[in-house]
């Protein structure tokens, strides 16, 4: 293993299809028209020295090191800003050029600390490289003149430092922030000698500035000016391994740069097809949880959750679990056991858990956390298109002319894709945002939504149907597409339905709270603005009509013909790294891998033959039903892998009561999470850095996860599940994740062509990948819908039963924030807490004033389900009548408030709408205090020695 050095071509790739041939240093080179001379040279293996150029950024031409001579042209143009021309004869090394470059370098070095040996970037510094390349041997100007060596460092960001004394003012950081990340947080302040990189205003530092800590500037810096603090502390890495981020559903590829088994830093991988070399603060920097002192590394057991934990050996923990499982099934029947798998874990691990349930427990009581996020996506898109997945790859956004974002907040939830979307918007694509809250995309430097439709939470279906009404009644549909691709009779029924006056924007304005004219304009733009793509998130799915909304979105795409090519489509932004994969792997109680129904005899027999068992044809329990059954006493044991259901599932009190009535709760996790407060077996888990496997991202891309260090708990998660299976007598004996994937491929048609050798060779592949699509499927439904004809389904708006009234007059909706991830189990254990140390309640100034609430006050939040308290943030981001909070912190427990209402089709909980009342408060509620006590009590651990 060695350190992966990616080639830097200096300037971005030209998209032109026309080839131009020129000669560089006597070699003939053919490149696409519009390519820079610098890039053309690099293509031919000729490296022109450069400082301000890098291929992630547009050329700039400020450093004057990359100058070349061109036959027949005067002067020495910069090779980065000069495009190639046919027949051009370029020289990159002449006496004149050498002199210029050396002279420029002398000037740079005359104002640079000569501390290379003790510099953190020693050996990884482009300034150093260029000094070597130009043969710099002396600096005629000396070092005594005015310089910047005494400038103070900015250490405010927890992950990197800014040392202006080493800065050569090449602007790469500023341009990376602008062009790649799209935040525009940096500038060059002052001019001439005083020019300096500045984050925000003069009184700002990196932390107080608009910087979102994505790391693009650090990656772009050619010197040690912007440097990871981990590199300063540890030293430069010696080898690297390409792997996939374990945070959100974007699935960024990273190089894990290592020193032995120690992670030095994560650097986004340019060949990563989801992220194209970009990253966000989580994937790039928030890795400290992997070595956090809270991690539990030894198995633990206890008779009941009220006892202290007892550390034991793996053998004892597994034997204890197996005995309990056996006893439960003997006393209460086979159906009394079940498992919940996690969208945080690999495809292979998830596959094993469902196998453990179906073959080992002998029932179908397997569900996954996707139940509570994107299960309506699976249902809605399968119904209309025939495949439970998004239709595009992320690159597709580069060809979109209109982007409709509904119920998603890409710049916080899916930041790397958010940046790619913003880039397209800056190029001129038009944006429509449908969201109760003014998310950043509505207006952020150089991006402004054409229309923001701030609808009332819970009225998505009314809104989407009103958009369809405008398209149909104003004749904006794509009839050719519909006749060719969709079922015409169903379309006609649907069109007649949406065309009814009661679905018009005017008629539903009262319900949605959005003026009709705005809805009409948005509909016209979507239907007539060129390639139109819809991106949506949990603001669509987590409703009582989540599945209906997904169907309504699919209807919009079909009626306008925005399906089946680049730039268009229906794109669910998946919350977690492997939501898509965990759903694909048969994690639902009614589906075997590949979304094949459990009642299908042919599919069942494939697995029955392979595993040598009989599989029940009856769907098992969904997560909420498990809790109900536990309360009724028919469900007694649960294996919960990598998911903190107590904090993440709605109606916390109901969940905790359900968990408390179990006889066996096995929590398999990195930390003693909130769910573990009710567990009696704890099996320590491994992080994504400690195991092999695959994650499937939101664009159906199967990415490899590669082990970069030994599991600190001793075993990779798939091994733990396998040992548990063996302990209950199941014959499960895989040699590793690769063998598990081979079984998945052999039994699941859409994965038939997938194997590790192929993934290693191609980097990644998008399913379906089989004989029909050997290279995978970046865009789906290109020649026709997977189900045959696209299906239009009538979408009747039915208001949720959760309604405001005199007692609960406000609507609470929930979401997430950039720096924290989900229930925060990982990110709360990193320095990301400097950006978001606690959950706060956003409330409109009008509602705050009525209740006498000032910014920063403690407020009490009451709903029919429960109450909690947190601090208020008074802001007009939310509309009057709507309040908003995040659910990252267990001390807040926002889900004490949420109700048990859920999607009619999939039981996906209605997190996004809860009627609440807000009142001033002095501090935590009784529930919060009581829960904190219980949780402290429950986390007592007796070390193995003391127990003997």
């Amino acid at each position, binding site marked *: 293993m060695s350190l992966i050095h990616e080639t830097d071509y200096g300037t971005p790739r030209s998209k032109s299809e026309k080839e131009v041939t020129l000669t560089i240093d006597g070699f003939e080179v053919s490149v696409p028209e519009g390519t820079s001379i610098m890039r053309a040279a690099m293509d031919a293996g000729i490296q022109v020295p450069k400082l301000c150029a890098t291929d992630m950024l547009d050329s700039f031409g400020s450093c004057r090191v990359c100058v070349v001579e061109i036959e027949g042209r005067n002067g020495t143009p910069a090779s980065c800003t000069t495009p190639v021309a046919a027949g051009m004869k370029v020289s990159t090394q002449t006496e004149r050029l050498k002199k210029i470059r050396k002279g420029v370098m002398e000037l740079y070095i005359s104002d640079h600390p000569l501390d290379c040996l003790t510099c953190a970037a020693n050996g990884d510094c482009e300034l150093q490289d260029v000094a070597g390349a130009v043969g710099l041997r002396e600096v005629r100007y000396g070092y005594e003149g005015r310089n910047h060596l005494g400038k103070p460092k900015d250490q405010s960001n927890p992950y990197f430092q800014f040392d202006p004394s080493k800065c050569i003012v090449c602007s790469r950081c500023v341009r990376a922030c602008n062009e790649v990340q799209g*935040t*525009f*947080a*940096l*500038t*060059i*302040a*002052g*001019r001439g000698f005083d020019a300096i990189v*500045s*984050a*925000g*205003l*003069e*009184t*700002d530092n990196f932390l107080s*500035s*608009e910087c979102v800590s994505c790391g693009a500037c650090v990656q772009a810096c050619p010197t040690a000016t912007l440097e990871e603090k981990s590199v300063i502390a540890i030293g430069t890495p010696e080898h690297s391994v390409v792997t996939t981020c374990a945070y959100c559903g974007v699935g960024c590829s990273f190089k894990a740069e290592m020193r032995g088994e120690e992670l030095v830093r994560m650097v986004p991988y340019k060949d990563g097809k989801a992220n194209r070399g970009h990253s966000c603060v989580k994937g790039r920097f928030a890795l400290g949880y992997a070595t956090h002192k809270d991690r539990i590394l030894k198995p633990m057991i206890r008779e009941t959750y009220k006892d202290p934990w007892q550390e034991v050996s793996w053998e004892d923990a597994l034997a204890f679990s197996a005995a309990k499982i056996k006893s439960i099934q003997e006393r209460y029947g086979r159906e009394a056991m079940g498992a919940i798998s996690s969208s945080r874990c690999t495809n292979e691990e998830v596959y094993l858990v469902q196998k453990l349930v179906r073959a080992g427990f002998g029932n179908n009581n397997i569900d996954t956390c996707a139940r509570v996020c994107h299960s309506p996506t699976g249902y809605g898109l399968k119904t209309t298109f025939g495949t439970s997945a998004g239709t595009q790859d992320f690159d597709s956004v580069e060809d979109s002319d209109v982007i409709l974002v509904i119920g998603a907040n890409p710049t916080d939830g899916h930041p790397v894709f958010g940046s790619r979307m913003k880039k397209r918007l800056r190029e001129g694509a038009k944006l429509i945002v449908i969201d109760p809250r003014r998310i950043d995309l509505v*207006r*952020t*430097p*150089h*991006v*402004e939504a054409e229309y923001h439709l701030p609808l009332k939470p819970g009225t998505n279906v009314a809104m989407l149907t009103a958009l369809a009404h405008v398209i149909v009644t104003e004749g904006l549909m794509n009839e050719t597409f519909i006749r060719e691709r969709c079922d015409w009779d169903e379309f006609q029924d649907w069109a007649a339905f949406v065309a009814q006056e009661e679905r018009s924007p005017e008629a539903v304005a009262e319900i949605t709270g959005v003026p009709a004219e705005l809805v009409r304009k948005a509909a016209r733009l979507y239907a007539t603005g060129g390639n139109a793509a819809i991106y949506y998130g949990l603001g669509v799915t987590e409703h009582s009509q989540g599945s209906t909304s997904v169907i309504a979105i699919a209807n919009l795409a079909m009626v306008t013909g925005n399906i089946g090519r680049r730039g268009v489509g229906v794109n669910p932004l998946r919350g977690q790294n492997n939501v898509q994969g965990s759903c694909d792997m048969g994690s639902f109680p009614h589906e075997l891998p590949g979304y094949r129904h459990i009642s299908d005899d042919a599919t069942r027999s494939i697995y029955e033959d392979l595993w040598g068992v009989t599989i029940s044809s009856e769907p098992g329990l969904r997560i909420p039903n498990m809790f109900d059954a536990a309360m009724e006493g028919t469900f007694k044991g649960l294996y919960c892998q990598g998911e903190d259901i107590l904090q993440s599932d709605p109606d916390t009190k109901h969940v905790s009561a359900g968990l408390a009535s179990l006889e066996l709760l096995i929590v398999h996790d990195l930390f003693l999470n909130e769910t573990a407060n009710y567990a009696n077996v704890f099996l320590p888990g491994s992080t994504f850095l400690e195991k092999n496997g695959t994650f499937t991202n939101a664009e159906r891309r199967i990415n490899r996860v590669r082990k970069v260090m030994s599991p600190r708990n001793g075993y990779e998660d798939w091994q733990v599940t396998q040992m548990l299976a063996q302990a209950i007598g199941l014959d499960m004996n895989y040699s590793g994740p690769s063998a598990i994937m081979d079984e998945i491929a052999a039994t699941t048609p859409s994965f038939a062509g997938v194997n590790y050798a192929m993934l290693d060779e191609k980097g990644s592949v998008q399913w379906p990948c089989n004989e029909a699509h050997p290279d995978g499927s970046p865009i789906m439904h290109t020649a026709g819908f997977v189900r045959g004809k696209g299906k239009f389904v009538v979408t009747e708006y039915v208001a949720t039963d959760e309604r405001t009234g005199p007692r609960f007059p406000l609507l609470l909706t929930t979401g997430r924030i950039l720096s924290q991830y989900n229930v925060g189990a990982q990110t709360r254990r990193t320095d990301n807490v400097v950006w978001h140390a606690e959950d706060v309640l956003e409330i409109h100034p009008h509602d705050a004033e009525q209740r006498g609430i000032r910014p920063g006050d403690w407020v009490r939040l009451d709903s029919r389900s429960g109450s909690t308290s947190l601090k208020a943030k008074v802001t007009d981001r939310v509309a009057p009548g709507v309040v908003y909070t995040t659910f990252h912190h267990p001390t807040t427990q926002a889900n004490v408030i949420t109700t048990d209402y859920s999607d009619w089709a999939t039981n996906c909980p209605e997190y996004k709408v809860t009627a609440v009342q807000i009142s001033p408060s002095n501090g935590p509620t009784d529930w919060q205090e009581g829960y904190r006590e219980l949780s402290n009590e429950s986390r007592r651990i007796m070390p193995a020695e003391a127990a003997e």
Partner: protein
Amino acid sequence: MSYRAAFDAEEAAEIISELKHLEGPLLPILNEFQTRFGFVGEEAVRLVSAALNLSRAEVYGVVSFYHDYHKEPRGRHVLKVCRAEACQSRGGDAVADAAERALGIRFGETTPDGQVTLEAVYCLGLCAVGPNAMVDHQRVVARLTPEKVDALATEVRL
């Protein structure tokens, strides 16, 4: 010409809404701020960046680039003394020293009473009659001597 040396957010908002429609409205707005308030401070930068949908870093980059945007209020009057070579050769150094002494401040500073800011300027184009100075961007004074500077300083302070 004199200005209030105080920022008024309401007036600033009016200036922005008046000039926002221009193509490339940033510089005209900043110019108007400088003219009316005498400086372009951080509050002004925040206001303009929000109004024009720019980042505050971008606006600060522009403001800090031009020397004629001042980040703090300056004196009611500005005395610019030429420090370029031609004036130096005609006794400009002594004149500059005298200006600092007479006002009791250094170049770039403002008198504690807020009356006068002393600045260096590099050539007013009147080298034949130097050393030269300029008062409040409009009145040029030539053939300066330390004595004349004393008188000028007293006059400007009034």
